[in-house]
């Protein structure tokens, strides 16, 4: 699996990422790092604790990182969740679930890509 195929599987925009970050090496490095970032588990735990301020910040971070890496699909759903959480209010129904689904897809695509390059 190439990085480009991985982007297709993640619903991301490969050309945009390369266009802005200017280096395939950089993009690959940070995409691989993305799976290890703690923001998603922070989002899940703060949602479970109904700590919506913390959840807002976590969603905001995910959105920012995804925008930087042009992971468009997850950027969109986390942005919607983020806006819904702004001001410490509980999220509208379905938004958190959408982020979870998109996140799982993104991470499994990265996993597949990782196995491809190391194997």
């Amino acid at each position: 699996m190439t990085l480009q195929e991985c982007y297709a599987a993640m619903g991301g925009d490969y050309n945009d990422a390369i266009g802005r970050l200017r280096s395939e090496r950089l993009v690959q490095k940070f995409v691989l790092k993305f799976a290890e970032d703690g923001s998603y588990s922070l989002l899940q735990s703060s949602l479970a604790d109904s700590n919506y301020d913390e959840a807002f910040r976590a969603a905001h971070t995910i959105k920012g990182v995804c925008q930087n890496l042009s992971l468009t699909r997850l950027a969109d759903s986390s942005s919607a969740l983020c806006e819904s959480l702004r001001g410490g209010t509980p999220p509208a129904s379905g938004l958190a679930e959408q982020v979870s689904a998109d996140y799982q897809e993104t991470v499994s695509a990265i996993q597949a890509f990782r196995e491809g390059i190391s194997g």
Partner: protein
Amino acid sequence: MNLDKDVIPLNNQKKKKETILIVDDSDLNRAILSDMLAQDYNVLEAENGQEGVDILEELSKDHPDLSSVLSLILLDIVMPVMNGFQMLEIMRERLWIEDVPVIMISAEKDSANIERAYDLGVTDFIARPFDALIVHHRVINTILLDAKQKKLASMVADQIYEKEQRSSLMIDILSHIVEFRNGESGLHVLHVRTITEMLLDRLAQKTTRYNLTPSVISLIGTASALHDIGKISVDEKILNKPGKLTDEEFAIMKSHAKIGADMLEGLSIHQNEPLVKVAYEICRWHHERYDGRGYPDGLKGDEIPISAQMVALADVYDALTSKRVYKPPFSHEQAVQMIAEGQCGAFNPLVLECLTEISDSIRDEMGSVDPTRQNRREMQTVLQEMSRHEELTASERTLQLLEHERMKYSYFAAMSKEIQFEFTTSPAMVSLSSWGAKHLGLDEIIMDPLHSSKVFSVLDADACRSLSNTLRSTSPDQPDICFDCQLNYQGDLRWTRIVARAVWSSDEPPRYTGALGKAIDIHDSRMRLDNLERLASHDTLTGLLNHAYAKKRILERMNNRPGSSYAMVIFDLDHFKSANDNYGHSFGDQVLIYLADLLRQSIRGGDIAARAGGDEFVIFLEYKEEIEAIIDRIFHSLCGQYKDFPISISMGVALSPALPRDYDSLFHAADQALYTAKRSGRGRYCFYDDTMSDTFCATVRHDAPDAAEHQKEERT
């Protein structure tokens, strides 16, 4: 905090790399930025605003000028613990923002956030997702620009000082000789120079009329030291005479201005030196008056060079605040006031305005005159001057007119000692007159005042909203409002009247765009009014309402709630005369006070109780049902004993549903019922019925004959 990881120790870098601090809560975001910049810069990282502040704190311990160790900060907005705006606030308080430029990087794209970031002093704003190349270039440009500006400022300042330094040494020596003869404090020359320069700095900020560049200001400051050289020709006996000078002596004294100028004019060389020219102006004309009544030439208004005007003012100020053979020193405040009130000569109003505006700084500066402080002040002037040049795009004429209006406004505002304010809805901002801001303990400019806890500490949130609503509900035809409220003047809660005019745009339909107005302290008059009202409405002995005021309240109550049922009750003390006769009048008063207390305790909050006069009391109450039980309870709670005197009362009650609904009928009926109660043997209560209207053979309705009887027994 990654102070020591990744980073070469700052003190012994081999090759000098600039350092950048990245503050972002996401590891990944920091890593991306760091990766892009690490090749050319040292990178420090912080996970949130607090860590960022800690790093700056640590660095500033050893490096008071942060810019020597840190060239740039890249700052995120949304972070836990402390967000980017809060960090900027702290950087502003600590003045770090002056030293280190900040670029904000955020996915928050709404313009309010961007505007706020710029307001807080960031140099640039980059939106996420960013382009690596753009970030790289903006970082380079920001660092270069900042360094250039700092170097330029220090170069300009260096040049100015070098040029003036040597000559000012000679001048200081020369002028000290003059002072020595005058018996003045050795600091007079230094004071005059410092004040002159401070006044000129201020004047330069206010107007371009006098072409006061930083080097001109410095030149005038230096030349000011020579203002009294002509005194070298005046006899010491006259200079140091403690008493009043004779006309002849005064004429000699006055000659020093012209003589000083002649001395300079007589110099065979250096005639074209700017310093000599300015010193000539100052020597000759520092005793002229703005109204034309000064000496030696009687120049008027701006015929007097601005250099001489300023030195004259500084000279007068320092003479007032210094001890002289003929007078003790005045305080700074007295001196400023005397000058402002025109007791010490006539000055240009614009110059006076400068004096009152920087009065506080002058007081501080005179407390600690130190020649080295001049450098820093001059440096600031240079920077301000440099940045001001960009703003001169509108036509000079328009600017001057605007400037004139602004000057007039702020002068009057400062003089009037009033809290004046201006509010705009967009941007949501209130600006206060400087006196007003100081008086209330607020900043002169407050953003978003309707959500500002500082504002709420002065005018509480509900009152703020209500004021805002009142202004919004005006119309362009009737925009003026008057709003009474309590303001907290730094701990002192006072009644205040806000008089304001709502500002409506000229569009169609007109939009509410803000307001301007002032707050007037009406506390004392309001308190007087409250007190008078209280005095007029209450019985002084018992503190109950008096009859006239009770009547007013009863009428209001009946008008407001015409559907309700009311009871009018009149009662008096049985055998009160015997209390007065047997124990004295002051005892009688005590009985009345005691009874009034019982009465207060036995009625409900909404009931009206009054002393109608003598030992007669009135109660007015609203009821739904069971009025007899209520009356019975009140009646019994009022009976009892005060010291040796048994308290027994007679009471008449009239009920509104049965009678015409007007005060007089009710009162009259209750009075009839009271009369009936007395006739039936006192110590009882009695409800009015029709049979009492014209005859006194009443049916007595007292449900407590036992109690009354019991009391009679006790009394005997």
